[in-house]
């Protein structure tokens, strides 16, 4: 119970920072101050809060869980590809969005799209698709909170209660602190989970009697393929480089880009982002793999046994039984189990707080949804003009409460693991929306109809993948169900981890078709007025 108490103490500190520590003197509430901290964040807070915003439960729990089952490939798949693509997109796109936000007062991406392409309702369609794709991200945070508190307390805090506590804490500081509170909480959390990786690595390493013995034991065992990438195909590995395109298309990241005081503050973020990713992901992935050598933790042995049964008898099982075993083999809590086994109680609590820090990154998504709703819908359709800016901020706060309750209700019912839920819906969808930004910022010839085509295509593709996966149950590990082949080539297949199109993850065709649609539809439709183009491209 001691670790759980430390975590509760941590939650109290977070609440204090978010609500009181950096609160401005009470006065007239302005939307730009509440939603964007008056575009005033300094370089340190900007780097850590932007980075922290992008790291979810997924960074610590999902990565170690994925590495536990799939081996070292997890780092190359998700971390090193992000270490290159995300800072590059912040450099190319984030800086431009910041400049346009500063120049024309934009607070959301949809405001920029509406202005750039001279559209109204198409912007609303983009808002709806962005919002629907963002909600799973919020659910991940609540699910991660529930799982973490349940594990840390040894089952004394049930999943539903842990999730409720995390939801309440996040909702409270976002509600009261707005962007300023959220940014400072994120900064505090990022520092904490940057420390987490290094400390966890040392403590568990010492506890296991050194990693050399463990690594060599895995190398000489039937699990040696966890030290290579044999379990993943090169096509799948390549596909994953498209996933980080989603980061800059996430509205909460773009909105965060608008909070910097000066453009120079992007410099440190762009340079240090890859190193921050490495500092968190490398220990988590490594520990996830090494967990396979732990023989005296019954829960880890049970997971390995479930994995073994799935691999050997999975093909002859009913899909429901396979799903059950898949859940039993999932390693989302493996790092927590390692800490419980090897760290002293008080330290396990501190490290648990580090995990909570990553888990609670859903604050920015909640705030972003609220900003988008109040700016893109409430203000756009006349609410701000009619009721004033103070009512707009109150509407944003009400929205925060409603969306948190909604996400919590879903989190209690969702059966998917944290990792699958994130990847299948939010990441692929936002990656497919990234051509919107590239076209808006770099191509004069792009049009609102091209933007609509990209948005509708993204929505349809995400729904199609979800329906396909619901209709065709996941096969046993090591096998595929070919749903459609053409001339001997597998066009569409159901795999144990999801879906492939010509062997690639769906994100690849989704992004390519999005880009093609933007080009073809824009070429065939009327461009915005010259005066509008001049404001974006000069001349």
């Amino acid at each position, binding site marked *: 119970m001691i670790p759980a108490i430390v975590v509760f103490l941590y939650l109290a500190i977070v609440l204090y920072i978010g609500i009181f520590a950096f609160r401005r003197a009470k006065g007239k509430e302005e939307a730009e101050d509440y939603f964007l901290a008056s575009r005033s964040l300094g370089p340190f807070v900007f780097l850590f809060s932007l980075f922290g915003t992008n790291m979810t439960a997924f960074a610590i729990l999902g990565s170690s869980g994925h590495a536990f089952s799939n081996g*070292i*490939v997890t*780092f*190359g798949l998700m*971390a*090193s*590809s992000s*270490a*290159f693509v995300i*800072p*590059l997109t912040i*450099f190319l796109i984030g*800086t*431009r969005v*910041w*400049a*346009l936000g*500063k*120049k*024309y*007062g*934009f*607070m959301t991406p949809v*405001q920029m799209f509406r*202005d750039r392409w001279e559209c109204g309702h198409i912007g609303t369609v983009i808002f709806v698709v962005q919002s629907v794709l963002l909600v799973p991200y919020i659910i991940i945070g609540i699910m991660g909170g529930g799982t973490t508190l349940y594990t840390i307390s040894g089952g004394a805090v049930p999943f539903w209660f842990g999730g409720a506590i995390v939801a309440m804490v996040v909702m409270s500081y976002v509600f009261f602190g707005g962007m300023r509170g959220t940014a400072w909480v994120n900064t505090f959390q990022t520092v904490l989970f940057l420390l987490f990786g290094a400390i966890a690595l040392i403590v568990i390493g010492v506890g296991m009697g*050194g*990693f*050399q013995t*463990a*690594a*060599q034991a895995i*190398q000489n065992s039937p699990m*040696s*393929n966890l*030290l*290579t*990438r*044999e379990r993943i195909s*090169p096509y799948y*590995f*390549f596909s994953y*480089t498209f996933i980080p395109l989603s980061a800059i298309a996430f509205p909460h990241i773009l909105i965060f880009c608008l909070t910097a005081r*000066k*453009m*120079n503050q992007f*410099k440190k973020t*762009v*340079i*240090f*982002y*890859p*190193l921050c*990713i*490495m500092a968190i992901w*490398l220990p988590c*992935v*490594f520990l996830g*793999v090494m967990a396979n050598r732990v023989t005296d933790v019954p829960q880890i042995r049970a997971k390995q046994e479930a994995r073994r049964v799935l691999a050997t008898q999975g093909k002859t099982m009913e899909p429901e039984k396979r799903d059950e075993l898949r859940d039993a083999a999932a390693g989302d809590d493996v790092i927590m189990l390692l800490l419980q086994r090897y760290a002293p109680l008080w330290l396990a609590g501190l490290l648990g707080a580090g995990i909570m820090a990553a888990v609670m990154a859903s604050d920015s998504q909640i705030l972003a949804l609220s900003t988008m709703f109040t700016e893109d819908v409430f203000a756009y359709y006349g609410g701000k003009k009619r009721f004033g800016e103070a009512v707009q901020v109150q509407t944003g706060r009400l929205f925060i409460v409603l969306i948190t309750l909604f996400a919590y209700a879903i989190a209690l019912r969702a059966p998917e693991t944290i990792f699958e839920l994130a990847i299948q819906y939010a990441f692929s969808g936002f990656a497919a929306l990234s051509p919107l930004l590239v076209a808006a910022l770099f191509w004069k010839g792009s049009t609102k109809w091209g933007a609509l085509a990209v948005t509708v295509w993204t929505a349809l593709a995400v729904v199609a993948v979800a329906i396909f996966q619901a209709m065709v149950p996941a096969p046993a590990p090591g096998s595929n169900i070919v749903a459609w082949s053409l001339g001997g080539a597998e066009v569409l297949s159901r795999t144990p981890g999801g879906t492939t199109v010509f062997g690639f993850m769906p994100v690849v065709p989704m992004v390519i078709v999005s880009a093609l649609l933007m080009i073809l539809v824009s070429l065939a439709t009327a461009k915005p007025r010259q005066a509008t183009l001049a404001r974006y491209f000069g001349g």
Partner: protein
Amino acid sequence: MKRTLLVVAAVALYFLHQDIWFWRDGTLVFGFIPIGLFYHACYAVAASLVMWLLVTYAWPAHLEQEAEAVPEEGRKH
């Protein structure tokens, strides 16, 4: 020329991510880090270096100047 070199560096880094040559290699570097993991850790450091080059030699400073040049009243959307 400088810009071309930076583009080449960025494109090369993207392709270097696909290190198929270490795909089935389970060699342990320093006796405990699998070589595929070590390579990608080095890759992250290289990414940071390329970002430093971009920030140093291709920083779009004109964007900030343009944004600051707009008077306050012109900023409200």
